[in-house]
């Protein structure tokens, strides 16, 4: 056997174990990211698996690739009509809120560890963003229904605040290593990054939709591959020219997810699957990367910093940032609580490690510890807290439609429901005898809430609901069949 065979075997077994655990522990509500990290730790050199993995650079690459898919898929599933009226507060949280969190943490680190402000700011920046993967996985996969604007707000915030954290981290490292850099210069870099991210993400999303609609491939399997390469290109191109690739790919996802295009459902499913795999792969890798024994060493300080983050820094920055907006006290409190940290801080913590910053190993372990406690304490209690603040809502009925149909603007077909009136001429007849126009079809009959797949011999009854695929030019002929 060659090396790749072993790698594949180990990789697939780890993923399968993660899935099995996720299934088994489904009902205790443990955030899945903790579970995957846990499997990684157990498989690692200090666990049962004995796999020695100590390559932050590989872990960083896996993390970045995974984040691309997670953010893109998250964007695709973001409902813009639901989100647009909370976009401004969400983006304020994603920028100003992140900055405030970083600064507050920095001040505390300075006081407690007796360090310079910059060193404190490095830790603050790394843990300043809430994590899209964690928030999405808890709000979307978990059994959580949230009232009104809370869910779109939290998702939009977590999807768009990574660029700020990445920027703050990289800038702080640069200031630490090259003290002559000016803060003004860095601010310009930031504006440039965000600007490019927005422009390229927006443009990229539009072009992607146009191309997917325009190009006709003879083989349907090409579409996801085509979209996949375009998505990766949007990220990498933006990053290469100095913009925020993460922001670009998230925006491209939102744009694409909110316009109609061919094979939309299939593409969304494809990326959803990819995002799930990415999450598992990423958290497994991060679990392998950490050495649990070292986490024990930072227990005291880690817990202290987590407490400061959860109970002081996040609430303070949320309350200050949301001051100009119309949110109730409870909503602000809840937003403070959903300050889940996840993969991004851990990936960011590999940056100082790779760039040779002093004490970077300590930073990595501290950050890892904080992420674990944050997702354990906050992730596990989101549901009860939402209930306590009476912000939880009955879970959105995830009803599987028997038929999925999306009408496109450029054709004449539409799916319309008709109730067979009591006393209708149609009742008691077989479909074949209805004189139905050629280009319209009854595709589903629902009787007493049960689906019946119709055939020519199906007899229509009063009160049946008919789902009819109609040619809009022929509506009159369809209508007549009822009389």
């Amino acid at each position, binding site marked *: 056997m060659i090396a790749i065979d072993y790698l594949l075997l180990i990789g697939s077994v780890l993923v399968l174990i993660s899935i099995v655990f996720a299934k088994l522990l489904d009902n205790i509500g443990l955030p899945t990211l903790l579970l995957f990290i846990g499997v990684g730790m157990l498989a690692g050199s200090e666990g049962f698996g004995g796999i020695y993995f100590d390559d932050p650079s590989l872990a960083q690459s896996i993390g970045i690739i995974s984040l691309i898919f997670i953010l893109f898929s998250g964007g695709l599933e973001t409902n813009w009509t639901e989100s647009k009226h909370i976009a401004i507060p969400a983006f304020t949280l994603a920028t100003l809120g992140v900055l405030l969190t970083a600064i507050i943490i920095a001040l505390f680190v300075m006081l407690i560890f007796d360090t310079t402000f910059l060193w404190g700011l490095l830790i603050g920046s790394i843990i300043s963003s809430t994590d899209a993967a964690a928030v999405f996985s808890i709000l979307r996969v978990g059994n959580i229904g949230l009232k009104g604007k809370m869910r779109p707000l939290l998702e939009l915030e977590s999807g768009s605040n990574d660029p700020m954290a990445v920027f703050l981290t990289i800038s702080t490292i640069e200031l630490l290593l090259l003290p002559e850099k000016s803060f003004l210069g860095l601010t310009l870099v930031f504006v440039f990054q965000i600007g490019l991210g927005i422009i390229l993400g927006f443009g990229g999303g539009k072009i992607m939709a146009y191309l997917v609609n325009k190009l006709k491939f003879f083989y349907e399997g090409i579409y996801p591959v085509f979209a996949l390469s375009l998505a990766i290109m949007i990220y990498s191109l933006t990053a290469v020219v100095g913009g925020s690739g993460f922001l670009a790919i998230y925006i491209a996802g939102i744009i694409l997810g909110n316009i109609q295009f061919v094979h939309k459902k299939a593409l969304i499913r494809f990326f959803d699957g990819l995002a799930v795999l990415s999450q598992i792969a990423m958290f497994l890798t991060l679990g392998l990367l950490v050495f649990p024994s070292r986490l024990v060493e930072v227990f005291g300080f880690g817990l202290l910093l987590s407490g400061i983050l959860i109970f002081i820094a996040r609430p303070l920055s949320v309350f200050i940032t949301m001051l100009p907006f119309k949110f109730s006290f409870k909503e602000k409190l809840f937003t403070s609580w959903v300050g889940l940290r996840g993969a991004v801080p851990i990936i960011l913590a590999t940056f100082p490690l790779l760039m040779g910053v002093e004490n970077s190993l300590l930073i990595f372990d501290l950050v890892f510890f904080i992420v674990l406690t944050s997702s354990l304490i906050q992730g596990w209690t989101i549901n009860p807290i939402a209930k306590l603040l009476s912000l939880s809502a009955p879970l959105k009925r995830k009803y599987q439609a028997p038929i999925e149909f999306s009408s496109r603007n450029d054709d004449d077909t539409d799916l319309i429901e*008709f109730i067979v*009136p009591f*006393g*209708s001429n149609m009742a008691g007849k077989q479909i074949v005898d209805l004189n139905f126009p050629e280009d319209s079809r009854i595709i589903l009959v629902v009787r007493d809430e049960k689906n019946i797949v119709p055939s020519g011999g199906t007899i229509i009854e009063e009160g049946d609901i008919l789902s009819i695929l109609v040619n809009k030019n022929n509506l009159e002929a369809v209508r007549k069949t009822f009389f």
Partner: protein
Amino acid sequence: MKISDFLSGGKIIAELKGNTKEDIINELINLYADDEKIVDIEKVRKAVVDREKIMSTGVGKGFAIPHAKTNDVNDIIAAFGKLKEPVNFDSLDKEPVNLVMLLVAKENQVGIHIKLLSRISRMINNEDFREALINAETESEILSVFEEEEKKYI
């Protein structure tokens, strides 16, 4: 997924004032004027009225179920109203209508939309239910008629 869940929270009018089809539809939709499920209330009205033009939703037995699918709602909305004086709804049986159930779903809620329509149709078919509805005088009485009836369906 119960009709009565959608109607609780003041989505019932015991005595509709309108005397045309359009007025009645507007009255019911107005119950959702400040509701966060609505994206654009005018477009919701238009969607329901447009669907009515394709074929009247007066289904006989004095009942009408104006409905539509539109992305101008975020989620399913429903409302119910009664009329003292029956109003012409262009029903197929030409009889005027005194019981009106509004149902609007988002475009991708085809499945749940059909199921709810089917439940309403099933309830209408029950004469005791219609009788009880007509005899109920207040909003809360009407709601409990729905709740009682839906206990039979699981």
